[in-house]
């Protein structure tokens, strides 16, 4: 039975390759990335063989504890937990519990993260290739530690399965996950500054962690090398107890979960709340604007980009403070304008087959294009203006403000026009409605890349005049170029915007069914 589960998992992994070349490329890139990371970590662990034993002990214990925390937290937050062997699917198969547990645990090692963890854990035996007891200690510790990692993640996902299956939890967790990810740079910088200040802190932390379930398994090699056999035995007991305890907990949770399928209940709400549909004009364009705005707020795939927005200035500010110059910060306005306007270039792809409603109701292409653009503009315009003025408070280059405003608004309008054309003709692969914004979407990656890079290239060409005026002021210092751009940028942008909406509208009228046919491929 265990062998069956293993071969099932293996077969699922292999069949993943057979779906499309794009997916193979994606998995190969992901695999190479993990392989590279694993190789670097293994090299470090091997190199530690010649390091000071205390330092090696600290590194191994801290790294191992970090890995365990990662296995605990990441599957919960990424809402991308590997559910290919979801225990719920075996409910009707009547597999004895011990064999199910063993099979699922071992199957957890098949796949990129599991394999990488196993290999890196085993590399700690190289670190403790110093005496016979230490090698054995490290080996036992590696097996115990890696297994605990896998079991820990299973316990966490099983415990939260019914919570995680509720849509609201998925929506929120996938966005909240973004925030620490975006702030990783500043966080690491601050943390390293703080830690280098107190060098003795890390070994002491490692020493304490070694007595906890998180670090016990990883410290076995170090303890035995130091000759502390009593401590080693105690820590082995801690590690074993942890694993057994987790297995027992997992068994209880599974037994409960197998007979109580997750129930994603939501409160019923009566009608009467039309929201934006009541506020905006009762025309096709107004309705589409209202619908698009609701999606910007309620669909995590859109809302994720709204969460990123306020973080952008923070990141640029921190990287500017560390680099000592705030040049990058002055790009905030144009960059935001680009990101926001380009975001709707995949609008129809985000609709997926729900686009059928637009097709069935016979909406004119121009109304469709204009409605989506106006929704983006409704919050994009104020945000871009604020983000253009904000950096001036730090850099003090107020003489560049008119020019910056012209450039930013030019990029915003031009980008919206171009997006209106692009999304009327081309589809790109995006996460399907209801999926996590980070889920790797199925479909043709090559076309997506071609559309994305082609579009950005065209956008760069279209905003050349505004960029030229910006460069002119920086070189000559003449205010005239700045005021010229303040007028010229938005003017040219609006002309291109109007042209883009019209052209996109015509294309949509002519080729709506073909676009819809392309959407039905990935659903």
């Amino acid at each position: 039975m265990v062998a069956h589960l293993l071969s099932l998992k293996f077969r699922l992994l292999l069949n993943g390759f057979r779906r499309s070349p794009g997916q193979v490329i994606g998995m190969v890139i992901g695999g190479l990335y993990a392989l590279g990371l694993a190789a670097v970590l293994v090299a470090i662990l091997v190199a530690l063989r010649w390091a000071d034993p205390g330092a090696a002990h600290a590194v191994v214990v801290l790294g191992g504890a970090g890995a365990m925390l990662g296995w605990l937290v990441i599957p919960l937050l990424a809402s991308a937990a590997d559910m290919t062997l979801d225990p719920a699917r075996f409910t009707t198969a009547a597999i004895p519990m011990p064999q199910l547990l063993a099979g699922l645990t071992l199957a957890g090692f098949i796949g990129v993260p599991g394999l990488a963890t196993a290999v890196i854990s085993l590399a700690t035996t190289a670190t403790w290739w110093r005496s016979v007891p230490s090698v054995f200690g490290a080996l036992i510790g590696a097996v115990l530690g890696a297994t605990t990692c896998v079991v820990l993640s299973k316990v966490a996902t099983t415990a939260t399965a019914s919570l995680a299956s509720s849509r609201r939890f998925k929506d929120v967790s996938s966005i909240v996950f973004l925030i620490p990810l975006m702030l990783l740079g500043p966080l690491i910088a601050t943390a390293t500054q703080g830690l280098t200040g107190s060098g003795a802190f890390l070994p002491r932390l490692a020493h304490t962690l070694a007595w906890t379930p998180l670090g016990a398994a990883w410290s076995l090699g170090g303890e035995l090398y130091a000759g502390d056999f009593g401590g080693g035995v105690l820590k082995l007991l801690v590690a074993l107890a942890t694993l057994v305890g987790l297995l027992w907990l997992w068994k209880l949770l599974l037994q409960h979960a197998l007979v109580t399928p997750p129930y994603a209940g939501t409160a019923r709400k009566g009608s009467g709340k039309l929201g934006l549909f009541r506020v905006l004009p009762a025309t096709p364009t107004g309705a589409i604007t209202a619908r698009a705005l609701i999606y910007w707020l309620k669909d995590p795939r859109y809302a994720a980009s709204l969460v990123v927005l306020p973080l952008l200035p923070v990141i640029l500010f921190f990287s500017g403070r560390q680099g000592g110059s705030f040049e990058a910060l002055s790009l905030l306005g144009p960059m935001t304008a680009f990101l926001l306007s380009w975001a709707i270039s995949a609008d129809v792809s985000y609709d997926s087959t729900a686009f059928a409603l637009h097709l069935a109701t016979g909406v004119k292409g121009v109304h469709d294009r204009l409605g989506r653009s106006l929704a983006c503009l409704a919050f994009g315009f104020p945000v871009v203006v604020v983000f253009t003025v904000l950096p001036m408070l730090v850099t003090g280059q107020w003489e560049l403000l008119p020019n910056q405003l012209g450039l930013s608004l030019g990029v915003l309008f031009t980008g919206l026009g171009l997006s209106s054309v692009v999304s009327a003709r081309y589809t790109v692969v995006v996460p399907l409605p209801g999926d996590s914004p980070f889920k790797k979407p199925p479909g043709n990656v090559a076309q997506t890349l071609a559309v994305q890079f082609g579009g950005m290239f065209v956008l760069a060409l279209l905003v050349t005049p505004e960029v030229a005026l910006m460069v002119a002021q920086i070189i000559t210092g003449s205010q005239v170029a700045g005021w010229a751009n303040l007028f010229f940028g938005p003017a040219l942008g609006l002309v291109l915007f109007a042209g883009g909406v019209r052209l996109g509208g015509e294309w949509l009228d002519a080729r709506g069914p073909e676009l819809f046919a392309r959407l039905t491929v990935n659903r």
Partner: protein
Amino acid sequence: MSQPHPDPPFVPGTSDSAPAPALSLQGLAKRFGGKVAVDGLSLDVPAGSFYGMVGPNGAGKTTTLSMATGLLRPDFGTAVVHGVDVWRHPLEAKKLMGILPDGVRLFDRLTGEQLVTYAGLLRGMERDVVRERVAELLVALDLAADGGTLVVDYSAGMTKKIALASALIHAPRVLVLDEPFESVDPVSAANIRGILERYVASGGTVIVSSHVMDLVQRMCDHVAVVAGGRVLAAGTVEEVRNGSSLEERFVELVGGGTNTEGLEWLRTF
């Protein structure tokens, strides 16, 4: 249509005197890669009829209805709704039709009420008219208590019903419904049938596709049996079933037989 006049009596065989069809498909064909999904299908749906389209899985029902409603461009053939060519004048033709496509998503981050309102406003309807009709539709389809719930949180049957409401909002002359009763509970199904029957009685035309023969036999006055992308039989339900039940006639037409040989072990326990 400007002058009210009594419909001429329906006499089979004298198609000249019959009223203009509500939907007329002529030689529709569609190929997906190497597979011919619809193979020169022609069909006339008389105005004011309750028309059923039945066929096995993969018969080309959904493809045909998609081509008839302007969602999928045919390789060959024409589709005409009340005299308007769907592919030459799509905007005019779509005003006449209410469409419930099968297997497409909805804008499910809207509430049910918002979704139906959205469908109405997309059609360019007045806000007050939309508000009134949405309220009535939600009550009629027993969704009033869930009008403020996001469609993504709806059950499959509720999702089907809200999609149906979106197709009804503009009071179309022709309703094209692809599998309207799939996963709808019996009470709601009876409800929907009542709505559709009243709609037909007042002169509207309904075209439904379904696997459920009993339902089609009881509900529809006309039926077309489709298989392999072609019409095998079409006409009034009485004509097509020709004495036997629609289900027997269907199995006879489509072939394949009832292969219940073998599986002896299933009776041995």
